């Protein structure tokens, strides 16, 4: 469907810069936009899942990409694409959330994305599955707004600006919620560790 495009046959691989993709997508190069979707669909899908749950996440992310495409002519070319996209994902997710019953809390919605085998070891460092489970349990005790910033910032590893965009709050709020949430989490985890040591001592 890119028949009218001047360089319709051009392919856009992972080596093409994002500014080029955005500029070409704005002129109707579908292939350029498809590469943008390819690059950002993971984070868009997970951000949507964190807000609306796994069931609606695919729909929300897809809708957000279509809306972003429509809005692309009004996107400031010099701005980074991802925070802008995540703002649209966040909006779409919140719109959907009003009409659908949202299940569980942010951490549970994220955890539902896959068969969470907490014992697997993706990183070099080994964290015990018990410790991971304790961390999930500790996050679950936080207020929803704190869970959303913790999940965005550390589990999905969004930047502060991206977190602020997706959750539609000022960066300052992201910072203050994060520091508060980390203090609470640390306390909760210390309590857990102490319990474990007591249990061990009692054996």
């Amino acid at each position: 469907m890119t028949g009218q495009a001047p360089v319709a046959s051009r392919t856009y691989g992972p080596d093409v810069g994002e500014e080029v993709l955005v500029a070409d997508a704005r002129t109707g190069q579908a292939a350029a936009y498809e590469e943008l979707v390819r690059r950002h669909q993971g984070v868009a899908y997970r951000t949507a899942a964190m807000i609306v749950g796994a069931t609606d996440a695919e729909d929300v992310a897809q809708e957000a990409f279509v809306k972003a495409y429509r809005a692309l002519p009004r996107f400031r070319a010099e701005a980074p694409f991802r925070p802008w996209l995540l703002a649209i994902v966040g909006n779409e997710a919140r719109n959907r959330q009003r009409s659908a019953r949202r299940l569980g809390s942010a951490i549970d919605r994220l955890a539902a994305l896959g068969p969470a085998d907490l014992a697997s070891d993706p990183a070099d460092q080994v964290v015990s599955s018990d410790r991971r489970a304790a961390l999930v349990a500790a996050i679950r005790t936080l207020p929803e707004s704190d869970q959303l910033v913790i999940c965005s910032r550390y589990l999905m590893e969004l930047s502060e600006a991206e977190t602020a965009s997706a959750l539609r709050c000022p960066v300052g709020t992201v910072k203050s919620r994060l520091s508060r949430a980390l203090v609470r989490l640390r306390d909760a985890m210390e309590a857990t560790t102490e319990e474990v040591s007591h249990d061990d001592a009692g054996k």
Partner: protein
Amino acid sequence: MTLESELNDLGRVLLAEPAPDLVPEVAHRIALEPARRPGLLGRLDWRRPWVRTLSVVLALSAGSTGVLAGSASARERVADFLNIPGISITHAPAGAKPAPQPSGGAPFLGQPVSLAEAQAVAPFTIAQPTLPGFGAADGVYVLPARIGSVVSLTYAPRPGLPATPETGTGLLVSQFKDSIDAMLFKKIIYNTAAARPVQVNGHQGVWIEGPHELTMFSADGNSVGFPARSAANSLVWQSDGVILRIESALPFDQALAIAKSVR
């Protein structure tokens, strides 16, 4: 190991599953979007308000996806409409159904005000039909300031000016200054309607004949809060930085005569 890196580790474990591939479906949907003309778009500075103005989106629905995909001529025809600044054209997904007409009769046009009150908030001189028989408007409305001043004038039905089921009135004249930032005016045409480019006093316009769907969108593509509604025959044109739109049951030549008299 810090708490932050433990959280990172947890994220990598929980989010290890690959996300579904959205590319095919998104690609399919954007293929149904307006043809963008690089030459024109490249020349436009989208930071300028008049460029980010109200857009009229025409969605042409073909009988089937196959017909639409293969119909280069239909796409080229609608691409011609892009000569109107701030107006973009899109195709609706094939087989899409019009939104049900919201109950409650007349569409929401904003707050009823006097013409003087409307003029006080409108960032343009409100234009009115000057054709004999059209005196003062029977209703004047201004949409909430959040999306800018959209002024609508209504003219009650009378002999020669039948009411439309869509608006409950004889003639609706809406006008919007192009400084309404990044708002999108979306028209979806089903096979109940047809659209073609026209000229109004030398300005490019679009004539849409037959019931079609009208929705407004904000910059990020979200609805501004008014439900989609069915619209009657409409003529949209741009004149001196203002987008004008008239809606009635009248055929083209009569609608054009009214449009030409609007000043």
